[in-house]
């Protein structure tokens, strides 16, 4: 029996999700592939966005995948770290901006 929730080699099996629902699986991968094509944003820019989101989502598969993808595109480690700080800043900002809600509530209840 598997003793861990995450196995790095499972990433290679991602495509197998279509086996249990071909239609939706295929639609997803088609969409996914299209999203990452060169468009108004370059594929390189999209790769960095994906890396940042991979971190905020804390998805280990995505982190592996988009770190490697970035290296393949010649993205430097400095660019990668800056990108995940953007993700982290939004994540912490999203927490802290709720502080205003807390302040509103305090002011209403105990003002």
């Amino acid at each position, binding site marked *: 029996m598997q003793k861990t929730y995450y196995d790095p080699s499972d990433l*290679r099996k991602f495509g197998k999700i279509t086996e249990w629902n071909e239609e939706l699986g295929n639609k997803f991968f088609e969409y996914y592939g299209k999203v990452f094509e060169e468009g108004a944003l370059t594929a390189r820019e999209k790769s960095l966005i994906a890396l940042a989101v991979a971190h905020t989502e804390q998805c280990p598969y995505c982190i592996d995948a988009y770190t490697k993808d970035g290296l*393949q*595109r010649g993205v430097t480690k400095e660019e990668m770290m800056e990108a995940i700080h953007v993700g982290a800043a939004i994540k912490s900002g999203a927490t802290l901006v709720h502080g205003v809600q807390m302040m509103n509530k305090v002011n209403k209840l105990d003002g």
Partner: protein
Amino acid sequence: MATKSLKKRESDLANSNRQLQILSNGIFQNGELPTFKDKIAETNQFPLKAKKLEILQINVGYMCNQVCEHCHVDAGPDRKEIMTRETMQQCLEVIKNTGAHTLDLTGGAPEMNPDFRWFVEEAAKAGIKDFIVRSNLTIIRANKKYYDLPEFFKKHNVHVVSSMPHWTRGKTDKQRGDGVFDKSIKALQELNAVGYGMPDSDLRLDLVYNPSGAFLPGDQMAMEKDFKKGLMEDFSIQFHNLFAITNLPISRFLDYLIASENYEDYMYALVEAYNPAAVENVMCTNTLSISWDGYLFDCDFNQMLGLPVNSKAKHISEYNEELLEGRNIVISQHCYGCTAGAGSSCQGVVA
């Protein structure tokens, strides 16, 4: 950063038979991944056959001023295998009579062969359409006696193809050694100064990019754009084209893959990226590789693995273009390196 070749370190992997064993054992033996032979057989591309010869690639010696992390030649200052003038004479006979349109000199650092200049002068007279010298750039700055190489290349209308792993210092020096980036930049500026790589210039200057680690190269066009932008903005350097080349799992790169526990993942990545269209144009079908001691191989990689051509003519002294055409190419699992994604050859992508 390595400072000695695998051979000098007496590494197990300096033995090409050991490398071939590794490439046939494990995940390929237990059927986890298909062998290259089985894979190309799926699309009826086995046996792979040589077409008309277009490119003659001559390795004039394994000596090099650098000891790059990934080198498939296991080249370095400690390698003494050098082509003699006698073998060069035999090559010249072939060059004069070949139907090939491209002559491609490689090494090691080809410029370190004591007869390099003589050979270039003689070969240039043969009037081959495209005469390539693969220069590692730093050699131009390594010693005063090499300072005039840009002028020398220009005089003989040599097409310069040079390795440049990245447009930033960090990634370049990691792969090729400390100080390599700065020297390479200086050498590129000197090549630009004599006219190499300038837009519309006939003096061709192309760069070769290969990844600095256990990952495949990205899209060649996109990488070229990034390289051009980076080198222009920071150093006002211009060049013509970028060739993105996949690292093949042999020699020092294989050693690195095993030591860093990336071997299996890398082979998976190569097999997953397998592209039958790349097999159509893989370089061994139009190239012949000649070793420093005059033996014939399907490619530079087979040369390093000690896999000779499957032909009666095995040495430059027995060279026969008709006999070599149509020969079966010798393959193993390293060949997946040339068929991944858009494919890979010494001239960049093939599909």
